[in-house]
């Protein structure tokens, strides 16, 4: 791993017991809610808006928001290429809603010219449930996270329409539509654990960060 002057100097003053360093992409959306949950779980959290801010983190969360806006800003400010490199290099990344769209290899119903970072071998459809009037909350059984169901909030959320051989399904709605997926160090959910007090997804993600850091 290349060590820049900046990260080397930051690492020098870092206590060995410090939590994993996790960035939250802060171009737009509910990044503060993610930062709050991660800090509560003991992570050392920073907000990421510039390429150099990726150098000092061991994992990244892409929050909820508008995927078209995040894509545009990530390209304008030179974040797209280093993000793709980090994902290809195995950095753990967790995306919620717009973040899942950013991580999907293929996005349906995107705006003209919209790109994703990719990494998850899935096809995702934006706004799959319709307008805000169709946004909803429900309980999901997610065996990987234990017996207690996950209370999930879907806000103009996407759905995973097909899952390639490299990705696996973590959760589905009662009608079978896939709403949480995992592939190696990448994790994506159509819903927003960060606004319901649900911490198990973030813990699951932090375990990946700790295992790799």
């Amino acid at each position, binding site marked *: 791993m290349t060590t820049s002057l900046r990260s080397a100097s930051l690492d020098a003053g870092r206590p060995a017991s410090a939590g994993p360093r996790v960035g939250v992409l802060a171009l737009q959306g509910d990044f503060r809610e993610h930062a709050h949950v991660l800090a509560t779980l003991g992570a050392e959290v920073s907000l990421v808006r510039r390429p150099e801010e990726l150098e000092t983190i061991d994992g990244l969360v892409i929050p909820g928001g508008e995927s078209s806006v995040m894509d545009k800003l990530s390209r304008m400010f030179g974040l797209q290429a280093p993000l793709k490199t980090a994902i290809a290099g195995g950095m753990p990344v967790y995306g919620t809603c717009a973040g899942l769209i950013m991580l999907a290899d293929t996005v349906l119903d995107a705006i003209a010219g919209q790109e994703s970072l990719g990494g998850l071998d899935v096809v995702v459809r934006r706004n799959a449930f319709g*307008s805000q009037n169709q946004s909803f909350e429900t309980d999901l059984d997610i065996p990987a996270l234990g017996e207690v169901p996950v209370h999930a909030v879907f806000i103009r959320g996407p759905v995973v329409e097909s899952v390639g051989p490299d990705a696996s399904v973590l959760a589905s709605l009662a009608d079978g539509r896939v709403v949480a997926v995992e592939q190696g160090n990448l994790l994506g959910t159509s819903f927003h654990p960060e606004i319901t007090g649900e911490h198990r997804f973030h813990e699951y993600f932090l375990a990946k960060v700790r295992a790799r850091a």
Partner: protein
Amino acid sequence: MTVSETGSSRVKRGLAEMLKGGVIMDVVTPEQARIAEDAGAVAVMALERVPADIRSQGGVARMSDPDLIDAIIAEVSIPVMAKARIGHFVEAQVLQALDVDYIDESEVLSPADYVNHIDKWAFNTPFVCGATNLGEALRRINEGAAMIRSKGEAGTGDVSEATKHIRKISSEINVLRSMTKDELYVAAKELQAPYELVLEVAETGKLPVVLFVAGGVATPADAAMMMQLGADGVFVGSGIFKSGNPEARAAAVVKATTFYDDPSVVAAVSRGLGEAMVGINVADLAAPHRLAERGW
């Protein structure tokens, strides 16, 4: 079998959470909506006339034609908001039936009821409402608003009223934070707001819903200043499509909102934008023409 619930407070307030750090733009045609989406708007407000035209043309301003709202919804994939008159619950029912993503009960339109605002709990579609101070914001939240925008003087390009109101709301929150519990009962009385909401604000130091700024924002620096003053995001009305180069200005305001605390970015995006909207100084407006004073 698990039960799914739509229209809950969490779902309504949640959409506003996802809009944070973004710019919501007034548009009057599907073509403008496309420009806004391409420039990075996080949502659009579908209108027949922007506030600057409502102001210059006068007359009663009402909900937009459903055909226009449908056409804008069909054009873009980002959320579409639309305005109902204050107290006009049937306009709000129509907007809900049109499947807009947010209803703005707005002082920019002519009020339909000078006593009551809409009972917003009765709707599945979330509402955003304007406020000039903390008491007004909490009264709207008590009526079911899922998002607040501080009022500026819409259609002027003069940001001074927006500044005044976001500062007012922030300073009133700060005062509550410093109070003892017994003082909060009197504060609730003076704010004319429910005690439970006043207590919540005193404990958390913020409104229970997302707070955007609106009215008079015309430049990237205006947007960045509102963000530095504590806004979660900005509405830009006449400021974009009444300017010389809407595409460039819209994209610049989006970038300045994300990098609001980085003057080098705000400087870079402010270059070569062409003419800003001409603007009207709020001080030159006779009191009956001040929209921010509508609502109570």
